Structures are given as structure tokens and as C-alpha cells.
């Protein structure tokens, strides 16, 4: 109501009141005085004015495009009626504006109010966007130019694009559009593109606006004489931008699995789709990791193979499962990598690879100087790969969080459910019917919840529920602890087994059996990961929760607890037991062994997911249809499947240091998993019945991927690099005290060779080696988060204030409309009385 008004400045009292907007009371006071004065004059002119209005409105017809001048007409008339009313006459106040007793004129006036025409008239959209471009221009400039302001009265609305009253009905819309085009020209290109993209007009109109904006720009440009070089620069920039857009559209057309994803979303909707999108995201992370390690580690080492001291073992089929045997001495594992500098072969040596031991000596070749320090490369590649992954993860996490975070705590559950719950992606008829049923059930539940919220549980009931919760948690925690303890003991037992067999040299007798026994621990862990979530579901079944989203969070946290504790125990086993004393189990190269273990775990995880899909989904569906005679297929448990993906990814991240080719294995695994899961879901499952908040869940999963998963993996890797002694006879870090020494040594060498680079050495010493840097960084991070949370609090308060303000304006509107109706009724009876008097005379 504050915008798009013109005030009649003729009346002196009104003018006086409006010129001092600071004191809003004076405005109202003068208003009431005005009304009190004018209430004596009750002219017939008002009736005639109303008839004129009606005639104008009738001529309009059912046109969608509302003339702006007519709106001003209405406002002016309405205000004239206000002045003629009595202030004390309050009898006809109604609560809502839905009375059926409104006259057609009132209804027409109502329907042409600004708040109702924004949604459907092009002119309103153009004027709205004119205001917005004006605001944007003002924000971009430091001080807006005076000529942009109109001669409007109230300073508080000055500069919101209010023009003086234009009576030319035809020219209004065209000039509005011209002004919009003018504004668009004066914006920068990116702003203009963004504004155009955000306008809810049809494509034809938008392209027309764009053409006009560019055309005028070209005209104004050709007026001046531009020097040659800046014109060239201009053309280059345009060409670059065109090529960037075409590159983006090319990338978009290369979408992986587009058809498959569309089929899944057409059948199941956005919730199940989010699982597959998460899988795709993980695939890209692994692809990036594989590219980095492949180009910088695997490729150079594969091209310059080291001399092997023992002969290479024969290939038996078991390698694919255990990762040992033939694969031990390949580029797959840490042990294969050499610790010296690789050189391009020199011409005078006849093509043999030239090798030299490290300690800084470098042989110069006649051909040129291409040396590649393997230890340094290994250290920095792993570091940089983790750093890039960290940045991408944090960025996607914050973006997802920003999208799903809502400032207002939801008061409007029902409205949101009705307006936002229809998933337009679903195409299949049966799925649409299913979605309608789900929405129906959810609406019924929400209604019941909203209306019977006042039911209070007795203390006895509350206590009972608390006890049941406690019991369920106790069961889950006890089972988790028991399983973790079991894994710990079993791995210790296997460790001792290995020690014994290495001492007694039983390995020579039955190598295959020994290698197969290495699979025992992975099988146990995967079995636990498979069975225990089922137990958690059973425990959750007996619990009773108030809101539908809490059970999901509880089940996610229980599963997470299980997986984190299992991984922690395994890390302790590898880094604490195996790495500390590798000789006792007959290992010369403990890193390769740990790498192989991780490969085995990853593979077993994949095999058990396959088994779970087969038994859990396929056979269970057959069972429930044939034996239990249920109508519905089993529900696809999204949270559990995503947690399994996160677990697999954690293993991959843990293993990159020891097995540079592990990301490739993970890529293969994810690729196969996509197709298997997709076909299983299409055949065996249905969409989740309970309401599933997609953005919130996606944010939670990305956060889980970042915090326990990636953080844990990077802490382990950092600890390995920082404190654990590498094995002395294999790998790129042999003869060093810790892996970290590789970087340090290089910096020292640089400093020795070139004293000018001491600054770099100091930076390295203070930033990378000193943990204080991490603390300071974390402190700054926390301060930034605190500031942002304060800003959000302030915004929440402002939203509440504005809401109150809008309510008050609504009251004003109601009051005015009822007054209008009242006056109309009065005048109608008055004219009828006059007419009857006339006719009777």
C-alpha cells in the first residue's frame, strides 16, 4: 500500500501533514480532522462519480492486462470517499473481506488492488522489475542522481520509482517498459543477465527487452569514438563469454546417467533420486582423486619401473579378492614406489633407465633436465589431493546448508505441505496415484496433530515413554559395544595367528589358505554392518515418537555410531598394532599390507551390499508378496543406503596414502553399484511413505561426508605422515624418520642451494609444521560463524516486525473496503429514494 500511490496535493492540510513524515501522528490527526470537516458535505456528486467508475470498469471487460491509470483512478476515488465518511461510524466492521454482500463495484475494486494484480498482469510485473532495477542501480552507485527522483511528496517513499501522475492511459505501459529498458542498460552485464533471468515473463518478451537494451547500448556506444584497442578488447571479451556459455551447455549435454535418473525420478520422485545423485557426487570425488594420483604418481612410476629384488609372484585368481599375491608388487601399492629421483633416459646410456640414490645428487643429462623426485611427489600429491577434496566438500556443504536453512521456524506446516509437496517429476500413473495417497495420509495426520495438540500426556505416560526410549538406546549401545569388542578381539586373534605362522614359517606350506584367512576380519565387519542396522530398526519399532522426522535422525545417529566405532577400532589395529611392530608378522612392508587390508574391506563391503540387495530387497519382496500377501512392495531405505556409501568412501580416503589406485577401484565399485541398485529399486521397492525432506537430508549427508568421514580419514592420514616410521625397505619414504621429512628435507635443500628462498623455508616451518596455525584458523572460522548467527537472529526479529506491519496494513485495507461498501450502500438507497421521490412527483 505504500508503493504506487499518488497523493492529491491540493488540500493544504494534507500537504502540511505529509511534509513532516517523522511525526506520523500529525498525518493521522489531520486526516481525522479532514474527515470530521467534510462529513457535513454529502453531495450527490459522489453517486455520480461511482456510476462513472462503474461505467469505466464495465468498458474494461475481462482483460488480463490492467491499465495502471485505472488503478490510480480507483485510488483517487477511494480516497475521496474516505473524506466524506463519518469517523465514528464503526458498525459495519467485519472480520474478513469475504462477505457475499459486496456489490459488484466493490468486488471490481478489490480485484484491481495492487496486491492482487501482481500475480497476473504484465504491466505490474514490468513496474515491479522497474523498481527492482532502480534499487539495484542505486546500490551499485554511491549516490543516485537527482533526475531519477520524481516529485513525489513523502520523502520516505521518494526514490522508489514513484512518478508524477500520468493521465495518458495508452502511453503508460510503453513508457514504463522504456524506463525498464533504460535501467537495464545502465546495469552491468552480469546484473542485467541476472535481472532478465529472474523476470517471470515469457521468453519472447524477455528477448525483446534484451534486444532493446543491447540496441540502445550499441547506439550510445557508436556515438563516441572508441579507440582501436579497447574495441578489440570488447570483442575478445564477448567472444570469450560466448565460448564459455557454449562450453557450459556442452558439459550439460554430457550428463552422466541422465536417462536412468529421469526414469528413477519419474517413478519414485525426488527422495529416492537424492540417493542416486549422492552416488554420482561420490563418483566425481573419486574421479578427481584418481586423476590427481594417477597423473602425478602412477604414471611416472609405471613408466619407470624399479628393479625388483624378488621375482614377481604368479597370478592366481585369489588376488582379485585379497589384493595380495601378484598385485603386491605392482603400481597399486605403496611398496612399489621408489624413493629416488626418476630421470629421463640419457642418450649416451643407450636407453637404459638411469637411477641414482637420493641425498640430493642429481645427474644432468645432455638432452635436458627432466627429473622427478618421487618421495616429494608422493608427499605433495597426497597432501594436495586431500586439500582440494576438503575445499570442494566444505564449499558444497555450505551451499547445501544455505539452500536448506530456513530463518523462520516453521509455523506454517500445513500451508507448506499443501503448496510444496507435489513432486512434478513423477510421471508414471501408478506412482502419481501413490503420491496422492501419501499426501492424503500425511495431510490427515498433520490435521490430527494440529487439532489435538493440546492433549497432554500424563506424567506416568511420559515416564513410560522415556523408559522405552532408554531401553531401546541401551540395547543399541550394548550391541554396538559388543560387536566392536568382538571385532577388536578377533583382529587380535588373527594378528597372533599371523605372528605364529610367520615364526613357524607355515606360509610355505599353504600360502593360499593363509591368504584366504586374511579375508576373515573384513567378512566379519561387513556382516556386522549388514545385520546390526536391522536390529536397530527392530528397536526403533517399539519406540513412539511425536514428530515423523525424529526416528530418521535417531536411526542415522545409531548407524553412524556403529560405523565410526568399527572404523576407529580398525584404525587402531592397523596403525597401532601392525605399523608399530611389522617384523612380528613377517612383513617387510607394512604399508602395503595396510593397503591390501583396505582393498579387502572395500571389496567385501561391495560383495555384501550385493548380497543385501539380493536378499534384503529382491527375496524380501517376493516373500512379502507371496507369503505375507501384502499389497505394497518394501520401502527403499534411503538413509541406510547413503550411510553405506559414506562408509565405503571413508575406506577409500583412508587407503589413498597406501594404495594410490584405490580410487579407481572405488570408481568401478560405484559404477556397478549404480546399475545394480537402480534395477533393484525399479523391480522391488517403492517410494518412502513417510514425508522425506530432501534438502535437509541431503545437507545432513553431505555434512556427514565432510565431518566424521573425511575429517577422520584426514586425521588418520596426517597422523601416519607425522608420527609413524615408514618401513625401511620399501616405499618412497624409506630411510626417513617420518614421511613428513620428505617435504622438510626438500625445503632445507632449497634453502641451501638458494639462500634467497629462506622466506619460503620459514613460511613452511611456521605454517605447515606448527599446529598453532590450525588453531588460529579454527578460531577465525568460529568467529565468522558466530557473526553470521547473530545476523540471522537479527533478521528473524525484522521478519516478525514486518509481519506485524503487514497485518496492520491489512486492517487498514479491510477498514477502507468496508467503508467503501457502506458509502455505496448509503448512496444507492439515497439515489433510490431520490428516484422514487422524483417518480412519485
Amino acid at each position, binding site marked *: 500500500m505504500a508503493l504506487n500511490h499518488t497523493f492529491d496535493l491540493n488540500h493544504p492540510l494534507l500537504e502540511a501533514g505529509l511534509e513532516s513524515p517523522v511525526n506520523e501522528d500529525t498525518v493521522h490527526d489531520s486526516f481525522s480532522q479532514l474527515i470530521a470537516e467534510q462529513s457535513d458535505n454529502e453531495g450527490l456528486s459522489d453517486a455520480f462519480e461511482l456510476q462513472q467508475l462503474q461505467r469505466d470498469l464495465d468498458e474494461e471487460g475481462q482483460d488480463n492486462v490492467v491499465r495502471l491509470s485505472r488503478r490510480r483512478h480507483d485510488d483517487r476515488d477511494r480516497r475521496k470517499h474516505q473524506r466524506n465518511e463519518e469517523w465514528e461510524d464503526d458498525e459495519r466492521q467485519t472480520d474478513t473481506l469475504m462477505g457475499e454482500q459486496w456489490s459488484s463495484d466493490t468486488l471490481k475494486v478489490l480485484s484491481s488492488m495492487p496486491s492482487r494484480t501482481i500475480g497476473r498482469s504484465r504491466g505490474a510485473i514490468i513496474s515491479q522489475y522497474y523498481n527492482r532495477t532502480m534499487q539495484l542501480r542505486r546500490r551499485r552507485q554511491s549516490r543516485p542522481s537527482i533526475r531519477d527522483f520524481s516529485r513525489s511528496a513523502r520523502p520516505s517513499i521518494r526514490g522508489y520509482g514513484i512518478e508524477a501522475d500520468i493521465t495518458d492511459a495508452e502511453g503508460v505501459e510503453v513508457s514504463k517498459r522504456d524506463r525498464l529498458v533504460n535501467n537495464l542498460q545502465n546495469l552491468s552485464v552480469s546484473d542485467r543477465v541476472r535481472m532478465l533471468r529472474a523476470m517471470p515473463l515469457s521468453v519472447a518478451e524477455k528477448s525483446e527487452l534484451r534486444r532493446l537494451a543491447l540496441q540502445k547500448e550499441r547506439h550510445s556506444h557508436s556515438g563516441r569514438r572508441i579507440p582501436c584497442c579497447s574495441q578489440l578488447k570488447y570483442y575478445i571479451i564477448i567472444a570469450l563469454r560466448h565460448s564459455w556459455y557454449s562450453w557450459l551447455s556442452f558439459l550439460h549435454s554430457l550428463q552422466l546417467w541422465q536417462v536412468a535418473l529421469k526414469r528413477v525420478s519419474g517413478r519414485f520422485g525426488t527422495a529416492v533420486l537424492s540417493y542416486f545423485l549422492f552416488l554420482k557426487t561420490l563418483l566425481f570425488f573419486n574421479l578427481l582423486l584418481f586423476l590427481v594420483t594417477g597423473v602425478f604418481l602412477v604414471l611416472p612410476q609405471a613408466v619407470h619401473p624399479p628393479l625388483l629384488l624378488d621375482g614377481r609372484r604368479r597370478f592366481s585368481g585369489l588376488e582379485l579378492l585379497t589384493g595380495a599375491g601378484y598385485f603386491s608388487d605392482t603400481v597399486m601399492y605403496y611398496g612399489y614406489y621408489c624413493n629416488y629421483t626418476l630421470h629421463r633416459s640419457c642418450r649416451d646410456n643407450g636407453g637404459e633407465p638411469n637411477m641414482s640414490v637420493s641425498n640430493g645428487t642429481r645427474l644432468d643429462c645432455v638432452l635436458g633436465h627432466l627429473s622427478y623426485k618421487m618421495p616429494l611427489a608422493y608427499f605433495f600429491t597426497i597432501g594436495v589431493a586431500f586439500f582440494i577434496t576438503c575445499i570442494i566438500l566444505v564449499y558444497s556443504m555450505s551451499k547445501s546448508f544455505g539452500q536448506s536453512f530456513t530463518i523462520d521456524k516453521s509455523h506454517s506446516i500445513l500451508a507448506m505441505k499443501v503448496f510444496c509437496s507435489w513432486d512434478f517429476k513423477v510421471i508414471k500413473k501408478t506412482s502419481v496415484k501413490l503420491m496422492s495417497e501419501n499426501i*492424503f495420509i500425511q495431510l490427515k495426520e498433520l490435521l490430527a496433530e494440529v487439532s489435538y495438540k493440546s492433549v497432554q500426556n500424563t506424567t506416568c505416560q511420559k515416564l513410560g515413554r522415556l523408559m522405552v526410549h532408554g531401553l531401546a538406546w541401551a540395547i543399541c549401545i550394548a550391541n554396538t559395544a559388543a560387536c566392536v569388542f568382538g571385532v577388536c578381539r578377533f583382529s587380535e586373534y588373527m594378528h597372533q595367528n599371523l605372528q605364529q605362522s610367520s615364526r613357524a614359517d607355515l606360509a610355505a606350506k599353504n600360502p593360499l589358505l593363509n591368504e584366504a584367512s586374511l579375508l576373515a576380519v573384513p567378512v566379519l565387519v561387513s556382516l556386522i554392518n549388514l545385520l546390526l542396522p536391522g536390529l536397530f530398526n527392530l528397536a526403533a519399532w517399539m519406540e513412539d515418537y511425536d514428530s515423523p522426522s525424529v526416528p530418521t535422525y535417531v536411526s542415522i545417529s545409531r548407524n553412524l555410531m556403529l560405523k565410526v566405532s568399527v572404523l576407529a577400532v580398525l584404525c587402531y589395529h592397523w596403525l597401532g598394532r601392525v605399523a608399530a611392530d611389522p617384523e612380528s608378522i613377517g612383513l617387510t612392508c607394512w604399508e602395503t599390507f595396510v593397503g591390501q587390508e583396505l582393498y579387502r574391506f572395500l571389496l567385501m563391503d561391495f560383495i555384501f551390499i550385493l548380497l543385501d540387495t539380493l536378499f534384503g530387497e529382491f527375496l524380501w519382496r517376493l516373500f512379502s508378496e507371496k507369503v505375507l500377501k501384502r499389497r505394497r512392495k518394501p520401502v527403499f531405505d534411503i538413509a541406510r543406503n547413503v550411510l553405506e556409501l559414506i562408509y565405503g568412501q571413508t575406506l577409500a580416503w583412508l587407503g589413498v596414502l597406501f594404495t594410490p589406485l584405490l580410487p579407481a577401484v572405488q570408481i568401478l565399485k560405484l559404477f556397478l553399484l549404480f546399475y545394480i541398485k537402480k534395477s533393484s529399486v525399479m523391480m522391488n521397492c517403492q517410494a518412502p511413505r513417510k514425508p522425506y525432506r530432501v534438502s535437509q537430508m541431503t545437507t545432513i549427508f553431505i555434512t556427514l561426508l565432510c565431518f566424521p568421514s573425511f575429517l577422520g580419514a584426514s586425521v588418520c592420514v596426517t597422523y601416519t605422515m607425522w608420527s609413524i616410521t615408514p618401513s625401511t625397505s620399501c616405499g618412497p619414504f624409506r630411510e626417513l624418520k617420518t614421511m613428513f621429512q620428505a617435504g622438510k628435507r626438500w625445503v632445507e635443500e632449497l634453502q641451501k642451494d638458494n639462500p634467497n628462498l629462506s622466506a619460503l623455508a620459514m613460511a613452511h616451518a611456521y605454517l605447515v609444521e606448527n599446529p598453532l596455525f590450525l588453531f588460529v584458523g579454527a578460531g577465525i572460522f568460529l568467529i565468522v560463524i558466530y557473526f553470521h548467527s547473530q545476523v540471522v537472529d537479527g533478521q528473524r526479529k525484522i521478519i516478525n516486525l514486518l509481519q506485524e506491519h503487514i497485518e496492520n496494513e491489512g486492517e487498514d485495507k479491510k477498514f477502507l473496503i468496508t467503508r467503501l461498501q457502506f458509502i455505496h450502500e448509503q448512496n444507492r438507497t439515497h439515489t433510490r429514494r431520490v428516484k422514487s421521490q422524483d417518480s412519485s412527483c
Partner: protein
Amino acid sequence: MGTTASKLGKDLLSEYQSNPFRERICHVFSTSEDKDGSLTFEDFLDLLSAFSDSATLEIKSHYAFRIFDFDDDGTLDRGDLEKLVNCLTGETDDTRLTPEEMRQLISNILEESDIDKDGTVNLSEFQHVISRSPDFVSSFKIVL
């Protein structure tokens, strides 16, 4: 697709035969004078553009509002909301809300979203509700 003069009747959009909003979508995006809901190529482009990944929340909420406004009067009043809920819950009798529940539901919706208390939900109020639901953008999407 034919020339720009050719039109797509609304019964030919076979992908959306089962979408309960198909008629409203065709009506909103159609610019034909016969008001039969047929779409030219430009209209179809507008439809896809509004439902695409890169359309902003503003555009999507604007078109969603127009789709839900069954009587095209610029606001969502009780009649519009009732028709909307019936579309959502399906055509069959056993998935319809009782009149009592419907009345309660609509009163609750109006109470929650009608800020200026005029008995209808206008575009700004609708956008206010939509902006608080982060799932809207992902569900108001048609993938081609």
C-alpha cells in the same frame, strides 16, 4: 515440432497425462486466443524454462501461484484452495477429505499464510510461504 505456427494440443502432452495439474499448466502457459489450452512452440519453451533447473525461485513461485489459481482472479481464495487440495489427494473417493476436514484444513492454511488477513492468499504471501520450504525448487521441476 513443426513450424512456429503449429500448436500442441493439451492431450498430446503424453508425459503428463497423469499429472492432476496438466490442464492448469496448459492453460497458464497457453497464449492462444481460443483459450483451448493449446501450446505453440514458444509457449512450450516458456513451460520448460519455468520448470527447468536454472529458473529462479521467484519465477517458479510466480508460475506455481498462477497454476494453483484456478479461477484466475489473482489470489487463492477458499475455492481455489479446496480445488487444489482435491487435486493433490486424488480423484478417487476414498482419498478425499471429509468436508469438515477440508474446512479445517483451509482455515488452518489461511491462518498460517494470510498475513494481511483479507481471507485470500496473494502472490507475496504465497512467495513468503514458499521461501520457507527448501524442497519447493527441487520438486517444481520437470526433467526432459
